[in-house]
């Protein structure tokens, strides 16, 4: 008996930002050029009054409707992974237990992680299940990066979108979640960071005034040093993949599908070429979704499953990497 991914659903907000609209806002880029740079045609963004916990409730409801065999009353642990929690306290997962209607006997925790969040949450869920502490872990993963992007920041607006995924990790003898490799390098924190919020940089009146024309940027403001993020990725991801294959005693050819954090089309193609992964084994689904931070991997898993690319017995490597710097990977067997 071991932990495995039983089912996934996801929610995308209805609002769509197209390349045509971006090109109208930033006339120096044509829609075709934006697609060539990013591999993205559309991104979804949440309404001003919808925060990730609201999206989590919608994603959970969608999950139980789409998978009627999975029942709310069977959930004995809830993990909520986002970098935009409701408040300093209580944990948003506690609020979600009540809003979703999960049993009061369930445990509930937040994991405030970004691009690597799905992999880290899965590691926690696997540990809970394999230790016998929980049988059915509902794992809600996603973010609303568009709320921390300045409207004039064309680079970030071209890449990021909002989404929320719901994944159920259960105990069964079919399928498994394998061993994990991971790492952290906080010396790179400044290269992908949300500034102007929370404890280290409390929001000030000056900040709100400075960004008054952008609604005050009260959630904080995301800034990215693209060249350093690319260098970090090139430095850490290929060795992580190699380390995981060694740990799991697998060759690259043994993996049926690679699903990496959908960072950007350019970055994924650079990584794929560097690691010599065949195109047909390298799944991407960001064209009409964008980079949805902690949600990219479960969204891609869902779409790959739906497309029939993952079959019973398939080995799928998932790898998350980014803000932190933080990275992690595992092999899923279906």
């Amino acid at each position, binding site marked *: 008996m071991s932990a495995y991914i039983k089912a996934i659903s996801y929610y995308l907000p209805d609002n769509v930002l197209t390349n045509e609209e971006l090109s109208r806002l930033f006339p120096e880029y044509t829609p075709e050029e934006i697609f*060539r*740079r990013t591999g993205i045609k559309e991104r979804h963004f949440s309404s001003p009054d919808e925060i990730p916990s609201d999206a989590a409730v919608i994603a959970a409801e969608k999950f139980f409707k789409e998978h009627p065999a999975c029942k709310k009353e069977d959930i004995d642990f809830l993990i909520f992974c986002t970098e935009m929690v409701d408040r300093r306290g209580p944990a948003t997962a506690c609020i979600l237990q009540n809003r979703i209607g999960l049993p009061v006997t369930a445990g509930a925790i937040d994991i405030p992680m970004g691009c690597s969040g799905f992999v880290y949450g899965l590691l926690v869920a696997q540990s809970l299940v394999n230790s016998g502490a929980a049988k059915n872990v509902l794992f809600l993963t996603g973010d609303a990066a568009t709320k921390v992007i300045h409207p004039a920041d064309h*680079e970030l607006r071209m890449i990021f979108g909002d989404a929320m995924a719901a994944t159920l990790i259960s105990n069964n003898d079919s399928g498994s979640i394998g061993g994990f490799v991971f790492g952290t390098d906080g010396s790179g924190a400044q290269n992908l960071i949300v500034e102007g919020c929370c404890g280290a940089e409390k929001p000030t009146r000056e900040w709100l005034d400075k960004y008054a024309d952008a609604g005050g940027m009260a959630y904080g403001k995301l800034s990215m*040093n*693209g*060249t*350093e993020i*690319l*260098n970090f990725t*090139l*430095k850490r991801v290929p060795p992580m993949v190699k380390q995981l294959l060694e740990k799991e005693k697998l060759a690259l050819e043994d993996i049926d599908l690679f699903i990496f954090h959908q960072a950007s089309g*350019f970055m994924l193609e*650079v990584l794929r*070429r*560097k690691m010599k992964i065949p195109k047909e084994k390298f799944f991407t689904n960001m064209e009409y979704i964008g980079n949805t931070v902690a949600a990219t991997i479960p969204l891609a898993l869902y779409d790959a499953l739906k497309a029939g690319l993952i079959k019973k017995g398939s080995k799928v490597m998932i790898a998350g990497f980014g803000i932190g710097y933080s990275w992690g990977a595992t092999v899923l067997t279906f």
Partner: protein
Amino acid sequence: MIQKLEGEFEDIPKGALTPSTKITDIQGWGSMHALIVIALMDAEYGITVKGDELRSVQSIQDLFDLAKKKQAAL
């Protein structure tokens, strides 16, 4: 390296680049080109070029010299 660069920068004609071309003068030069150069340096020479190093480079010849210097130090 010039051929590789021309191959990666889809929007410039063949033969447009010479060793003395200033990289910031390349047609449409911007943040995306910087990423392309960094990825190319990694793939072709196995070296890491940081963003500020790239900003201090003037010409394509300088870039090539930087790559050779870094490669020798590996």
